[in-house]
């Protein structure tokens, strides 16, 4: 068949194998083993570009770390293909199909947005390929829309919520919430509410704002009226309410703010929230373990002095998970074998030990209760560890 011109598909590994679509399946008894291929879907353009780039950087470092620089596992070369979903579901599907059908990848990793990821899930099932979800957080990925080929190294919204609750909730604590009025915000608050009420807190007010709004003062006004002890904010997207929260003197009125600390670029907009107590998925100074030390060091030298950001360790974890699974199967890419070895598998990541839960393949993982503080020499508020929230503590309910 005519597949010229396909060679420029960039498989960024050392060896660009035009041979990959020669024979149907690979026999492990062969001398020359077919490489194992991983396809990474990420937003490399559009609104989530920076997330996508973090994932990709982390993924590359992760492969390097897990294979100790050989880019080989059990004698198989590892190659990868990276494709940009542009944060559009239809592009995600097109690219995923291309990677599965034309590049013949054995694993998928992705993607930066939940919608893109949801759109690709059925493909994983149809083609029986393992897909590691990273960093999309929608609960339904490991919930209603889950299938057995789906694993997730990213934390889901419920884990965020549990962590958020753990950071502030307690007996009789009155909490008001603010979130953008769409699925991400609504789900986040629902999960938070469940977790916080379990800890004895009282949700006194839920406020949802137009995610594209310029003015949040009405929403904040209502929160002030509800007189809570805490205001818990779930927010994502560039447009932020922080300035207005400060301008409305929320904190002066004795209402403490709590939210998830975002990536560094967004932290820079949170000056007004210094002193805020909340949680984070990752900040490079928080986890104390070898993997993270390696990551911070390598990232620094590889990317001219930059520290790894919010989703960098996630990309790395996804790579580590795949390599470890392949080690366990001795390079066998038979999907059922892989699933059974990955179910319940623990692996060391920059965030400590993660474990794929058997029931829904969600990786249980540590999250961090933090306080935002001003640190000398850093021009944005820095998350400072108050307490590590253990994987068990933040384990979300099984919902599939």
């Amino acid at each position, binding site marked *: 068949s005519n597949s010229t011109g396909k060679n420029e598909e960039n498989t960024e590994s050392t060896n660009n194998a035009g041979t990959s679509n020669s024979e149907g399946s690979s026999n492990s008894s062969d001398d020359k083993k077919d490489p194992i291929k991983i396809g990474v879907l990420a937003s490399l353009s559009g609104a989530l570009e920076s997330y996508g780039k973090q994932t990709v950087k982390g993924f590359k470092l992760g492969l390097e770390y897990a294979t100790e620089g050989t880019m080989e596992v059990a004698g198989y070369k590892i190659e990868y293909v990276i494709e940009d979903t542009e944060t559009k579901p239809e592009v995600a599907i097109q690219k995923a199909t291309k990677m599965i059908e034309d590049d013949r990848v054995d694993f998928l990793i992705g993607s930066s947005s939940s*919608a893109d990821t949801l759109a690709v899930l059925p493909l994983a099932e149809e083609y029986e390929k393992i897909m590691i979800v990273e960093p999309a957080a929608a609960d339904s990925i490991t919930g209603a829309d889950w299938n057995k080929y789906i694993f997730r190294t990213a934390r889901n919204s419920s884990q965020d919520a549990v962590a958020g609750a753990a950071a502030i909730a307690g007996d009789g604590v009155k909490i008001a919430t603010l979130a953008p009025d769409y699925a991400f915000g609504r789900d986040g608050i629902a999960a938070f509410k469940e977790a916080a009420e379990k800890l004895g807190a009282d949700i006194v007010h839920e406020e949802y704002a137009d995610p594209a709004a310029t003015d949040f003062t009405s929403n904040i006004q209502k929160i002030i009226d509800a007189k809570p002890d805490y205001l818990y904010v779930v927010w994502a997207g560039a447009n932020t309410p922080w300035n207005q929260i400060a301008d409305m003197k929320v904190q002066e009125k004795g209402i403490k703010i709590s939210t998830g600390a975002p990536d560094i670029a967004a932290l820079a907009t949170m000056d007004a929230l210094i002193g805020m107590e909340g949680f984070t998925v990752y900040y490079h100074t928080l986890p104390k373990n070898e993997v993270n030390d390696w990551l911070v060091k390598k990232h620094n030298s590889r990317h001219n002095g930059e520290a790894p950001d919010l989703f960098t360790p996630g990309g790395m974890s996804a790579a580590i998970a795949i390599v470890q699974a392949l080690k366990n199967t001795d390079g066998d890419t038979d999907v059922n074998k892989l699933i059974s070895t990955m179910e319940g598998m623990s692996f060391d990541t920059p965030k400590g030990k993660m474990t794929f839960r058997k029931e829904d393949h969600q990786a249980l993982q540590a999250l961090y209760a933090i306080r935002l503080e001003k640190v000398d020499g850093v021009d944005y508020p820095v998350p400072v560890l108050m307490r590590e929230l253990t994987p068990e503590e933040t384990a979300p309910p099984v919902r599939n």
Partner: protein
Amino acid sequence: MLPKNSSKTNIIYCAVAFLLICYPFLNDSKSMLILFTQVFIFAVFAMSYDILLGFTGIVSFGHAMFFGIGAYTTGIFLKRFDQTILILILSILVAAIIAGVVSYIVGLLSLRLKSHFYAMLTLAFSGLFLVAAEKWRSLTYGNDGFTFPIPDALKDRMTLYFVTLFLMIIVYIALKRFTQSPLGRVLQAIRENEPRVESLGYAVIHYKVIASVVAGVIASFAGSMYVLTLRFVNTSVFAIDVTLDALLMTIIGGVGTLVGAIIGAGLIEFAHHWLTGLAKVHWIFERWMIFFGILYILAVMFFPLGIVGTIKLWAIKRKGKKAEVVKSEKIAG
């Protein structure tokens, strides 16, 4: 009186159709099939838009509304009921009916307005649909959307390729006939001079509503097909970007030509594919979107009437023919 030309162009069209039918047997790259499928679907959508923009002279900023109606209806039907062809067809029909009714109502409410005001009112309506899709979460699962299974018979990309190709050809032929029917000619007259049409004894508002219903229904087909290939739907189908895509494809190809819409869809989808591909070849292309923007700018500079429109003009000029019928098909500045 038929210009000899038209039989020649018909031969070209048939040849292209034939090539497209053969294509999957020559090259079985699935991603190419998906790309083509995408082109066919957007060609249908853009053609429906051309009925409004090119033939009736109405600029709508809310055409995504009908696309979204098709998309969600099919998605919800397949999620809730059996995944049979019957349910699929039923969903397409129901979508068409809803789109028809909605376009009828929206048309009645808004078609009396002058150009910009009409455009913005349609934007408002489609914005309301977007909010509804976001808020009616028991049905739509909100902004994240939902996946759904499709009939087994359609799972093969090749089948979908042929289904959408077939749909595109049928829609093209049907709309071509529609625009060249006596009614279609009246639409073009409305584009030129609306009050004058009134005094020739045509009830303008009926025609505009008919145009908007036809466009709406065809757009809903495109929406249904679109989610069928994705097996997923979310609120992005109602976004202004979808309308803008149709707008761009129609304009780049040449308004008021129908083929233009197809060519525009192909051009934009392939340019997109090609440019994103380049992004990995050289860092210069990492911001490939810039080149996309430049493409639009150059298109206006070199093809001011769109590709088809400008080529037609060249053809006329070369022949030195005086004012030809074809020229009448170009829209007023």
